[in-house]
């Protein structure tokens, strides 16, 4: 399903480990909670905390291998 324009612009769209596309809701969860588990490979995707003023967000994010 095509992503809403807003999401397509800014969000991580695939699991960085297995490439599984994230659903729109998973992208929302990741944006707010900053961490989700990929349901395909059980990889825990963690984003850095909200950016502080004057600092750029690390778009790569941090990754933690929590493979099942």
């Amino acid at each position, binding site marked *: *399903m095509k992503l*809403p324009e*807003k*999401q397509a612009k800014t969000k991580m769209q695939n699991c960085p480990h297995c490439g599984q596309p994230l659903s*729109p809701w*998973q992208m*929302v*969860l990741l944006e*707010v*909670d900053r961490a989700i588990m990929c349901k395909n490979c059980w990889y825990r995707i963690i984003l850095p905390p909200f950016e502080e003023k004057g600092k750029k967000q690390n778009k790569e994010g941090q990754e933690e291998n929590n493979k099942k």
Partner: protein
Amino acid sequence: MRTGQQDSGKSFDPYLVEHGYGNRFQGFQNLMRLRIRDILLVSSLYDLYLFEEDGRLYELIRAEYQGLNLSHSPELTRVSNGRDAVALAKEENRFDLIITTLHIEDMHAISFAKLAREEGLEIPIVLLAHDNRELKYLLLNRESFVFDKIFIWQGDFRIIIAIIKFLEDRLNVEHDTHMVGVQNIIMIEDNVRYYSSFLPLIYTEILKQSRRLISEGINLTHKFLRMRARPKILLCSNYEEAWEYYTNYKEFMLGVISDIDFPRGGVQDPTAGIEFAKNVKADQTDIPILLLSQKPENGDLVKNIAATFILKDSSMMLDNLRQFMNEYFSFGDFVFRTEKGVEVGRAPNLKALWKMLRKVPEESIKFHAERNHFSNWLKARTEFWLAHQLRPRRVDDYPSIGHLREDLIHSVKSYQTLRQRGIITDFIKESFDAESGFARVGGGSLGGKARGLGFVNTLINDYNIHHQFDDVFIHVPTAIVLATDVFDQFLDDNNLRKFAIDCENDEEITNRFLEASKFPEEILGELAAFLDIVKDPLAIRSSSLLEDSQYHPFAGVYETYMLPNNHSNPLVRLDNLLTTIKRVYASTFFQRAKEYIKVTSYRLEEEKMAVIIQKMVGTRHENRFYPDFSGVAKSYNFYPTPPQKSSDGIVDVALGLGKTVVDGGNTIRFCPKYPTDLIQFYSVEESLDNNQLEFYSLQLDRKVGYSDSTEDELLVRNSLQTAERDGSLNYVGSTYIPENDAIYDGLGRIGPRVVTFGPVLRQRMFPLPQILDLLLDMGTWGMGTPVEIEFAVKMSVPRGKPREFGLLQMRPLVISHELEELNLEEEDQENILCTSDQVLGHGRIEDIYDVIVVDYHKFDRSKTVQIAEEVSYFNSKLIAEEKPYLLIGLGRWGTLDQWLGIPVNWEQIAGAKAIIEANFKDISVSPSQGSHFFQNITSFMIGYFTVNQHIGQGEVDWEWLDKQPKKEVKEYTYHLRFENPFHLRMNGHEHKGIIIKPEV
């Protein structure tokens, strides 16, 4: 707001700070995590006697905690000697604090403290001593540092509360400060007597301030959680300790209360306090500082550093201290002053602040803004988010003070609205958000429907779903909920309970309820206040206590009414609302509800009714009001068509009000993951046959009546021509061109109109599938189970405004996940009554001996209403005999349209354990998954077989049924009873099923 000052750049999780609740319902709940809950008091009996005054110390403390609205007063255990204390603390491992006096039986208090440390106890140990010579010598003893702190008993048991709060603040300051920015007060005093006397007073003032804020809490939880965000006291005894606290927490500093003479660099420094104050002021000019001294001449030194001075031993010292805190720590009212100190206004709360900001002179606004008074006052009231928003802004940032004023007013107002979003507040007219507020009125339960709505409202707000899609505003429409206590009071005040339970006539029940004259006065006032804010049409919905049950949604059992809410006289509007509320209350006792409850494990006496009063989504067209379209979406499809999977979900939509969908009328059905795969349009003929020809709207020019009818008389059916004239058909309509025998999206051509939702689903005029996909996923995640949502959409909006998606309801779906695989064995054709590959349900049913059959040969489509009544007769009889039965009929069960099937209500067939829905001649049947009827089928786990024999989808042996001896015959139906049971086998994974005839 400042001139020339840099913001520190520190930021918080904006969602967490936003209203103290955060996205995971944590927020303020995460504050004060470390508490003193269990205290071990080591003292002689006499010391305890002194502490206790006339009562038990435990009770005194408890009463004080309650009086200050503090939760969890600590437990107190007393022992009289050191060895017992150490043994008990080690053995039970539950104490958070040890308070010891100087007089314990077996050893000196210092020895006891040393022993406790040697034994590995890391609990804080505080000495509570009397002010006498023994203490003076003790203080000179280096070994006294073994105590975490020493306090003096001065006759007030509140010192114990101060000790507890002092330790809790020390334990929690790092976490709480960085969590939401809880404020701190540094107190520097090395004299035991003075700090033992100040500390209880300061804590009492702080806790009283917190208690004042309770009245402004937006609901009970908020009120008490704000207590946790109260300012903390950081008590220090020397310069270095104080400066370390200041360095760590200076951004969160409410102020400083300090002695002047205290240790610095290991030696007593008579001007340490002055130096401390100077250094603080050099760093932040606007931090309020109070300096105390026994020496009056120190007052002159203080003048030079813009601090306040109090003489320690003056008779008014404690009063002066209290006044300072109220004025400089921003406790109490915000007092608007001019540069010259003249008071020009006062605001006791946020609402009043907002009003005063409009009125006070610009001079006063500039004065306070330059000194950060607004954000300081807000922080003292735990309004951290707003305080943090305001603080970085400088007066210089604005072209004029007028602009600054407007910005302040806008910020305060937005904050008041924002902090209520996503939570169920207590309804307060002044602060209620007319766009998205969700508030309760009265006590008791909110009922299942309202709770589900409240939950989804929270999710939408916490996860910022409102504006996920461009040009669309997703929300739960504004609502208040009359909680169940109002229902109870109404029944009791009007003596209706017994009558309503016993009466079997719905019209009579309605009449009595409408005539009931007593209604709780305070509730009437709140309803009137709500109507003053919301002047749009309203939906009045039931939200019963038993609707909480995931397994019994009570779908369609109780009534929903719509109200135009447009009379010019507010009293008439209030009367209309009250009348409608009474109708909803009456519906609790209708026969339908009573029949429904009979087949559950509940009793009618247990049922209570809350009422949701909600702004409708829609547009006014002449004297009609309706949404452009509405629907029901499920995250689980019981009848998926490949490549769709059950977990892809299914949506039923219709033009106009959602009554078309929930009553089982003609709708458009699509899967959100495959929105352009519209199976029902596989042929033009099929599309035209199943076209939605009418839609429901609320009639705005009809009067709300007092008739005893149980139906909503204000809803009317309209033709597609009306929708085209209104413009709403543009979004969902297509045109049939007979010459081409084809249907084209849009209304540009001349030809019969067909509701296909082509413009939305194919032309993507509105991101409906994407929105539903997101919300269904969100709901499934939040509820932990598949969900169903009801929604309404308003496309007709003024230029520049977003289109509106209103979420009207969300409830859990019942999905049985039996693990047993069921293989449908090969059966002799002779033994089969029915087969189907469109079966709902899973497992075996082996206890059906009775069958109610709609006679295939006598079936007349014009008589389906009568057929429904006959079925209802048999149903009541078999329920009374407690005999479940198999129901076999023609056309769609529970349809709105009597020409499509048999228009029964759920309660008319509630005793059926399995149902066969068979086609009649060439009229196919397809289950309406969006209807209330369907919901009840699934929740009661009725085996449901759909048979379209004419196209090879299953079969029913009508001939066999016809030959069986009949127990009772009606004009169009008959009842069969067998000695042996039927055998039903259903494979829910493959949606296949078989019914085997009873053995002869």
